[in-house]
């Protein structure tokens, strides 16, 4: 803290300590270098654009997952929420004007998240169980509303969204810009706003928070609701990219989001984690998939590698806390 980076590096064993402390960034840089060396295609703008587009959806729900995990909870419903809300958005975009469709989708996401929040905060249900239930319900509703098949955009609003989602501004894909704006907002909120301060306090010691006069239940409720709203944002983006909403979207995304948050050094016990590290966690997961694709590794071994990286990252964090 008080030490500058230079001092840290020059103390005995300093380089190792430094690497362990910033292990997320370190893993990320190693992966980028490795990717660049191993594949000529990696550093092409087409590939990088593609990579950013791929991670944006999961990235957005990862930020929601982060704030839930910061309070010591977990939200398993986000993957299914993406599916349900993508279906809802596709239905809405074909019936009402675009701004209303977007707004309604986000409100519905917030409301469904509120249900988890209510169960966790006011009914004292274990977050794992409450959101597990919501996960099944949302997936089921997705299939019901879509009648089991994808719903394609058939309106000018839909076309506009498809255009938006597949194009770039100053070289950066639009949906990645949306993701990055959300990351920056989360950073500001967690660092400089009372909301962020309080959810971190809440996650690090719920009883002390209660006895300090913090409205514990209100904030617990809010994080799930916000996670739901972010799932809606992710749903709009992924639906627009493919021009349709399908109940099969977002399969197991909640697990990728948890993985990204954990690789980013957050503690599942709550109270520890940052938005920027979650961003890097998301990029690391995306990079692994990307480079393995470039190397033509089939998807099954990819899952094995992903799991290995998660274990490695968490082991490194154990060293850090020693």
């Amino acid at each position: 803290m008080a030490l500058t980076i230079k001092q840290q590096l020059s103390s005995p064993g300093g380089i190792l300590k430094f690497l362990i402390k910033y292990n997320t960034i370190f893993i990320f840089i190693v992966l980028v270098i490795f990717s660049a060396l191993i594949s000529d295609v990696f550093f092409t703008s087409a590939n990088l654009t593609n990579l950013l587009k791929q991670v944006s959806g999961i990235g957005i729900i990862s930020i929601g997952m982060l704030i839930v995990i910061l309070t010591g909870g977990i939200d398993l419903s986000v993957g299914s929420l993406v599916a349900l809300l993508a279906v809802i958005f596709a239905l809405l975009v074909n019936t009402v004007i675009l701004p209303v469709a977007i707004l309604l989708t986000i409100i519905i996401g917030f409301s469904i998240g509120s249900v988890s929040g209510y169960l966790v905060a006011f009914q004292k249900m274990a977050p794992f169980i409450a959101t597990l239930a919501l996960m099944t319900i949302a997936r089921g509703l997705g299939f019901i509303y879509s009648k089991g098949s994808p719903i394609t955009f058939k309106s000018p609003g839909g076309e506009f969204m498809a255009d938006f989602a597949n194009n770039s501004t100053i070289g950066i894909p639009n949906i990645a810009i949306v993701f990055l704006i959300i990351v920056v907002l989360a950073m500001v909120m967690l660092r400089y706003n009372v909301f962020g301060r309080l959810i971190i306090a809440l996650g690090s010691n719920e009883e002390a928070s209660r006895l300090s006069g913090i409205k514990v239940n209100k904030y617990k409720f809010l994080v799930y609701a916000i996670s739901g709203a972010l799932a809606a944002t992710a749903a709009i983006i992924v639906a627009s990219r493919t021009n349709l909403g399908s109940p099969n979207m977002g399969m197991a995304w909640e697990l990728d989001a948890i993985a990204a948050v954990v690789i980013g050094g957050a503690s599942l016990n709550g109270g520890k984690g940052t938005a920027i590290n979650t961003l890097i966690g998301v990029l690391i997961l995306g990079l692994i998939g990307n480079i393995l694709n470039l190397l033509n590794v089939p998807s099954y071994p990819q899952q094995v590698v992903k799991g290995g990286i998660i274990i490695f990252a968490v082991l490194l964090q154990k060293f850090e806390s020693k």
Partner: protein
Amino acid sequence: MENSESEYRVEMTGISKSFGPVSVLEGVDLRVKHGEIHALLGENGAGKSTLVKILSGVHQKDGGKVLLNGKEINPKNTHDGQVLGISVVYQELSLVNDLSVAENIYLHKMGASKFWMNWKELIKDAQELIDSLGFDINAAARVRDLSIVQKQVVEIAKALSEDTKVLILDEPTTVFDPNDIKKLFENLFRLKKQGISIIYISHHLDEVFKIADTVTVLRDGVDTGSLPVSETDTDGVIRLMIGRDLKDLFPVRDIEIGKEPIFEVKNLTARDNLVHDVSFSVRPGEVLGIAGLGGSGRTETAKLIFGVGKKQSGTIILNGKEIKTKSPVDAVGFEIGFVSEDRKEEGVFLPLSIRRNISVTSFKSICTNLGFLKVDKEFKNVIGLIDKLNIKAPSCEVDVKNLSGGNQQKVALAKWLSIDSKVIIIDEPTRGVDVGAKVEIYNLINEVAKKGVGIVVISSDMPEIMGISDRILVMHQGTFYGELQKEQFSEENILRYSIGEPIK
């Protein structure tokens, strides 16, 4: 095995240990002879527990040497310690509630030797061991069903089930009644005759003078003396423990106390009836002490006032106006502060920085309307409090888990000073705090009272509650049994009221 040439069974020299930046032990020596009862004394936080945990292998020392029978040892974990014959009976019980007494006693051996257990033999052995201690406990009973005293006995039996050479007892008698204590002492004398060395940690000096051969005293991580019990007395030991005479600990109370009460509680009763019919009042500038035995409802009363737990009836009056505190949020809204007795679980946020800890109550004053922090104002506020309370830390960004107990407690207090609380209820203000910090906290309480704040202090520490209070209320079975004015203060009077007897 016993014919080693070394004079001492255990010889710890120059032991040092720190947790993070906090140094807990600095060059401590401890020498225990064969077959001796060696008392290890010191205030909470002096480093006694850490020292024996290094001996038993729970913690690893940073520096120094540990010799057992003249041979250097380096236990890496409690299993290493046990193999060497070092057994510990901890304060916090370490039994598995859902297993039987016998299984608990032999837990460390289960799975080590054989695949199949001979249950009958196991229970028979355990029963013999317990019988030999002279206590009436069924070895086949489930630990969950035992009383706390019985559990403690099982702990001791567990420690003795090994081929124990060094037995460490960390405050074993806190839960015992005099009869049980007598039995325990008989056992200790018997073990001593068998040549077992016993390290006995206790707060009760009278016990120490009854059984120990030698005392070693620690203060703030340094050993301040080691001498045969026959060469010292209670006052001498206290001086070694706190580095001064007892009376110098407390500030002079020279505050003008207001006439009208700032805070009143009338007929407060909890729904679960753990607290009933509690009434008291505090005047501005007054320090009201609440004494009583553990479980008499002191903490419950404080929490009830603060909005934790459900009230059945009763009124709370602040500055002449009735207030309702349904939750801590309400209580804090009315500028009532509460410092919990359980600092680590309920008082501070261990993983967070000092700044984040202190600011948690005062966002209203350091935020814009949209909830954005005015960082410079926050820093000013926090640094001001760190200076005022003399919190010893390199910066306000240090995590509270790296502070000593005393400094953690000051952070817990600072939280309520950063907003101008009108009433502060402090439950066990100096538990686990070193002497220096104790004096500072007492002075701080005095200073805050001077500003007209009403202060309620709950404490089990008799010298403390008599030293800082203007008036003491004694609780017994969920309600106030008696009130003591300053001239009536004595340990005896407090104790009499605590057990529901009139004072003489």
